[in-house]
């Protein structure tokens, strides 16, 4: 199967990679688009860039909408730039599940830094692909990393599973909370607290901020020290207070982020990296599987005929036909998946699909 497309010939891809690595921001931006769209160019870029990455510090910033994440990211940019540290931001906002469109508004709070060459801000729509979001953000982070941005901040709304996943694949996960979101503390306890390395109570200028921080600290003190079977071992995150618009507490936050980097070098780092690697490889594998299964499509009518006759036809069964059988409750999803795998690995006997299909009426 030809992997090259117009605009993504090997030499054009190489040229774009070279340009991006030598500081051409437009080239980098185009590679980021390729990564988002999972085009062949993205694969070429990842082959080039991935071996050069691995140095940058990935920081996930997540929490409920309106907690002040974007404002806090802007404040972190300011703090990092004071130390002349280059910083890249990937700001994710949800796509509409109905239209596929999105309003990406995080940049509004960060525009003041847009003209600084040591800052690169990229907005991304979540696009609702399961597991795909963290693949896209991880790949984007790898490109930034190789291009010399040694701090990469990834902002997501900590609402959906995939957004939490993104935060969890970062080296340091900062969960941002705000006072007067009182009831949400319970919700945060369930999902986000498990992935938090640092909890920030933002809007420190608001009444109740100190109380919220105290509540969170008390709640964390109750968390068991030992992992329960089947659960990730509990983290014991620091709780910090910030006021993002004035920058109060932000230097301390950055110090806490940096301290994690130097305090627990190999072990934590290693396990997070492994988790990230696993997620990436699985996502690519699932893409590849989809691709190859779709390629199994054969002439539908002939198969439909074979199906009706109930004959053990030797013809391969198109994925679409299998799906229709599952949709009509004529075939269970496990058998369908097994058949597809068998067909891919060349061990399948296509006719058996229909044996199962007839047999399903029998109570088992």
């Amino acid at each position, binding site marked *: 199967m030809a992997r090259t497309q117009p605009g993504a010939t090997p030499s054009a891809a190489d040229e774009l990679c070279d340009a991006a690595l030598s500081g051409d921001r437009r080239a980098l931006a185009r590679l980021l688009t390729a990564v988002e769209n999972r085009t062949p160019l993205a694969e070429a870029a990842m082959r080039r860039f991935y071996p050069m990455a691995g140095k940058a510090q990935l920081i996930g910033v997540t929490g409920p909408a309106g907690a002040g994440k974007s404002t806090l990211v802007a404040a972190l940019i300011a703090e990092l730039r004071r130390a002349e540290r280059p910083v890249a931001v990937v700001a994710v906002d949800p796509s509409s599940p109905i239209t596929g*469109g999105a*309003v990406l508004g995080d940049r509004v709070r960060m525009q003041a830094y847009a003209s600084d060459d040591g800052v690169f801000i990229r*907005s991304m729509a979540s696009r609702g692909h399961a597991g795909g979001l963290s693949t896209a953000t991880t790949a984007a982070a790898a490109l930034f990393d190789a291009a010399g941005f040694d701090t990469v901040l990834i902002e997501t709304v900590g609402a959906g599973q995939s957004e939490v996943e993104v935060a969890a694949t970062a080296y340091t996960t900062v969960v941002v909370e705000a006072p007067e979101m009182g009831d949400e503390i319970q919700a945060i306890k369930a999902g986000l607290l498990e992935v938090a390395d640092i909890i920030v109570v933002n809007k420190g200028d608001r009444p109740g901020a100190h109380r919220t921080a105290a509540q969170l600290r008390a709640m964390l003190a109750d968390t068991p020290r030992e992992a329960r079977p089947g659960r990730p071992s509990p983290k014991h995150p620091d709780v910090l207070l910030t006021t993002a618009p004035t920058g109060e507490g932000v230097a301390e936050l950055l110090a806490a982020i940096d301290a994690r980097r130097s305090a627990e070098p190999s072990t934590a780092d290693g396990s997070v990296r492994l988790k990230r690697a696993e997620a990436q490889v699985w996502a690519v594998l699932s893409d590849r599987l989809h691709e190859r299964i779709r390629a199994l499509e054969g002439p539908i009518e002939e198969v439909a005929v074979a199906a009706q006759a109930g004959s053990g036809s030797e013809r391969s069964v198109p994925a679409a036909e299998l799906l229709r059988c599952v949709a009509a409750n004529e075939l269970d999803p496990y058998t369908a998946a097994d058949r597809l795998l068998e067909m891919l690995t060349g061990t399948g006997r296509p006719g058996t699909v229909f044996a199962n299909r007839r047999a399903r009426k029998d109570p088992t």
Partner: protein
Amino acid sequence: MTDRPIKVLIAKPGLDGHDRGAKVLARGLRDEGFEVVYTGLRQTPEMIVTAALQEDVDVVGLSILSGAHLTLVPRVCSLLRERGMDDVLVATGGIIPDEDVPALKDAGVAAVFGPGTTITEVAEFLRANSRPRD
């Protein structure tokens, strides 16, 4: 995937402090299936063009009420060209007198949408005229 959404930057150059119209347009285009980066008020041409570059947008939409369009819009267009973004479509909306339209078109603006334009019309124009994507 060629069916990925068209990415649009909506910016408000100039000093006026109203962005209701720009926000309505941003949400309207989202509902038409576009990915819309919104950058907020009081953007300089340099800020707008840097954002367009980093975001790799297909379209730059400039919403102007302040009357400074004859200086700001051509500046955005020339900066886009300078930075290699000739293929990015520029459209403007807001309050722009008819007699200024030719000058904007000469500067490289593809469309000037008046106050009566519907979001569907804008969406259709962008779908038909933005650069092909790979």
